[in-house]
């Protein structure tokens, strides 16, 4: 149970264009530990959906197993949720997405879920370019099974018993870029200002959007030696730039200073503006992105922000040449070839 709920800075009863308040985007009361980073992420998802005027019932939230995977219960009560099996959310999301491309798919996963047991499905969901937002609530530990090492732990980090991690970490963001994910961002659960625009950008993006969000586990992985602790992250986090999402219908040109920003077009016509820390960084070039992440990692710093973006990607519906009408809404007369066709088939088999 979270006794300390992430603080919402906005007036509670403000309404969005749908006439809904933030409360309408909430879920059940969280049963995660007080201060868990995962709850902060849920709050940002609520905020992003509120700001984007998302109709909650047109959202499907899917997850695997883990503390992180419980999170979908704690936001968007009016959405259908699916808490599947450990590491297998990507396949469930793939099938669901094929059945109805009109919904918004939010996949919630953990580092154990995505970087270990489910890494194969994670890879293939990217490869297939499922149109979804894929959250990895990355705490560098197995929260729900009480603090074992995960595959995203840094080499030198220690677990709760003070034992050393012996293996190099998997960097899911770099991996996703290599695999052709078309929107890859990294952030930190405690950085609402950065995270909310990144979530909004991911939601507006068509194609596979990965949000690798460092989300400290207060109970098992928040000690000094952990590289995924609050303090460690605050000190080592190097933001790529300030992401500021400009919703559709507003003047786009006024929200960022020219000269210091890269404009990134989103599929739905909206744009995301990236303020560059390093003027050489271009998030549309995968090689640049990978180098930048590695450079910073060699400096012991974690690069956050929008790391990679490709606006020209094709999603699975296009690749499979699927009809516009969702498959789950096709009627029998469109699906069944019928008696007459069967006569012809019988003929061809005799």
């Amino acid at each position, binding site marked *: 149970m979270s006794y300390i709920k992430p603080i919402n800075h906005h007036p509670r009863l403000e309404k969005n264009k749908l006439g809904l308040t933030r409360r309408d985007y909430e879920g*059940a009361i969280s049963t995660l530990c007080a201060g868990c980073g995962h709850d902060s992420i849920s709050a940002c998802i609520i905020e992003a959906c509120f700001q984007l005027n998302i*109709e*909650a*019932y*047109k959202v*499907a939230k*899917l997850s695997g197993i883990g503390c992180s995977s419980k999170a*979908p*219960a704690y936001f968007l*009560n*009016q*959405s*259908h*949720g*699916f*808490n*599947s*099996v450990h590491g*297998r959310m*990507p*396949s*469930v*999301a*793939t*099938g*669901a*997405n*094929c*059945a*109805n491309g*009109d*919904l918004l798919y939010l996949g919630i996963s953990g580092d154990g879920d995505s970087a270990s047991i489910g890494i*194969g*499905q994670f*890879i*293939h969901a990217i490869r*297939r370019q499922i149109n979804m937002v894929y959250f990895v609530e990355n705490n560098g530990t197995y929260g729900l099974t009480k603090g074992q090492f995960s595959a995203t732990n840094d080499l030198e980090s220690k677990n709760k018993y003070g034992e050393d991690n012996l293996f190099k970490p998997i960097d899911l963001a770099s991996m996703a870029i290599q695999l052709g994910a078309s929107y890859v961002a990294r952030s930190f659960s405690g950085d609402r200002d950065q995270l909310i625009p990144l979530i909004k950008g991911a939601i507006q993006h068509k194609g596979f959007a990965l949000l690798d969000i460092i989300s400290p586990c207060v109970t098992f992985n928040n000690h000094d030696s952990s590289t995924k602790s609050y303090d460690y992250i605050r000190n080592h986090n190097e933001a790529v730039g300030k992401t500021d999402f400009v919703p559709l219908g507003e003047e786009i040109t006024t929200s960022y200073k020219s000269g210091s920003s890269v404009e990134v077009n989103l599929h739905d016509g909206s744009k995301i503006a990236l303020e560059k820390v390093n003027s050489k960084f271009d998030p549309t070039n995968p090689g640049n992105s990978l180098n930048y992440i590695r450079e910073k990692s060699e400096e012991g710093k974690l690069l956050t922000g929008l790391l990679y973006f490709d606006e020209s990607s094709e999603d699975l519906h296009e690749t*499979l*040449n*699927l*009809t*516009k009408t*969702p*498959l*789950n*809404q*096709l009627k*029998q007369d*469109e*699906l*069944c*070839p*019928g*008696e007459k*066709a*069967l006569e012809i*088939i*019988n003929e061809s*088999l*005799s």
Partner: protein
Amino acid sequence: MLEPKSFQSIESVNDFVIKFANVNGTGSASANQMFAKAIFRMGIPVSPKNIFPSNIQGLPTWFEVRVSEKGYLGQRGGVDIAVAMNPQSYSKDIDEISEGGYLLYDSTWKRNFNRSDINIIEIPLTQLCVDSFKNPKQRALFKNIAYVGALSALMEIEYEVLEKIISEQFANKPSLIEPNIKALNLGRDYVLDNLDYPIGIKLSRRNLLENKILISGNEAAGLGAVYGGATFCSWYPITPSTSLAEGYEKYAKKYRVDEKSGKNLYASVQAEDELAAVGMAIGANWNGARAFTATSGPGISLMSEFLGLAYFAEIPLVIFNVQRGGPSTGMPTRTQQSDVLACAYASHGDTKHVLLFPADPKDCFDFSAKAFDLADQLQTPVFVVSDLDMGMNDWVCEKFDWDDSISYNRGKVLDYEDLEKLESYGRYLDSDNDGICYRTYPGTHPEKGAYFTRGTSHDEYARYTEDGNINAETLMRLMRKFRTASELVPEPLIEINGEDSCGIIFYGSSKPAVLEAKDILRTKNINVDLMQIRSFPFNLDVWEFIASHDRIYVVEQNRDSQMRTLIMAEGGISAEVLRPLVHFTGDPIEAAYIVNKISEREVNYKSHKNIKER
């Protein structure tokens, strides 16, 4: 000078077994199929079986065709004619030929075979093709067509029928018709010019197959899925199920592309493994599309975790398990019925699944389409359990039929209007007391009907609970649902043949062998009553049949008599009544095998009984 024959040649019309011995990957399959199809077109019951290695090129492969005017189309055993095209397997192939039988071989390289009791037919097939075709590939490929041509003269296969099959087969590539016909004539003319013909084994048109078709179970099941309204198929390649997914795609490409937009009204995804395949199918079903996956034993093992989720969270799902030889990787290209228990109780915890057992390709079509209704009605995984023999071989079966006036049964799904009228919605409320609750699809209603699907213990409103009593109630409700299932699934087919008969229980591809065995047993004064099980859970008819017999042979193609175990476990039936009659070499079961086992034991039974009665 010809020596007089020291043996009696086999003489028969429309009743024999011919076996083609080939090298895998040399293009023999289509020629062999053409041979079988021609017999089918002459209206004579025929059953071709491909006996192939788990190999792509080079190893021996066989194609065995039984022809039976009486319509006995199970594996028979014995070989009357061998077409030996593979020197690697000569010795085994020639040994198998029955006394008085025939051997046709490629005499480009002459051989002396150690059999003086068979007829040896020499045709220099390679030489003929080398002389007539320039392209080395064609030379190799057309050897096969040439022996079909030779057989047409030797066995009196109607030439026009073969000619027609070739022109149909290459309708899209007309330039190939002429060389194929040329190859056909090459073999045929050689026989007509150089050999005695016809031989003792002959074919003669009968027109017995008026309402029949020739098709494999997998293709039939794939077509059934198109008819059943499946819009999503996810699969991972595995013999012998691959051709099922391919069958679905073949027909979907034909019947499921929107004419106006050119867009697909179906999706088929080759997954990264079986876990993903079943996960995708579950995701699509959860979202209201009819979705399935096709696999074989090893895939079922991998899918098990997900199957428990679909069972417990109550998501419709159709799974085709085309069984092969197990355990483990086992005999990937041989047939068995050894996944019955693995399917019935797949996944950890208390789980039970609905199984359908087709017995021929017509059933594969019907049960495939029906499985989607059942899965939607019961909101649970439904397995269609076939096997390699019926899945991959062409079988003669009844023509498919379909009634356009019958609508799909999508089960209990609430739409916008239903939800509008509802005060409150609980996903797992059993309001009709049949164990089946009401689903909603995501995106239906802005305020009502959303719920959280989970594999963790949940209450009637789909909320997580650790209350053991609530969970126990859910498990009991699922049993109630399973009882409802027993009223919806196909009932057994029962045939009663007289008093004091023993019973035979069988299912799936054992059917032709059992039906033949029944006739043979009758000639030995052994009467058998038959029950063909077509589904699990078992309904009342199954228990009644068992109750009315004191001894029943359970015929199945696995070591452990799995169906018997299932019946005993589910019905508390005593082991004494149900007697295992198992066969598990990976070759299809034969009637003679069943006859031997039963007559042996029936003789014992009768003598015991006589002693007792005295």
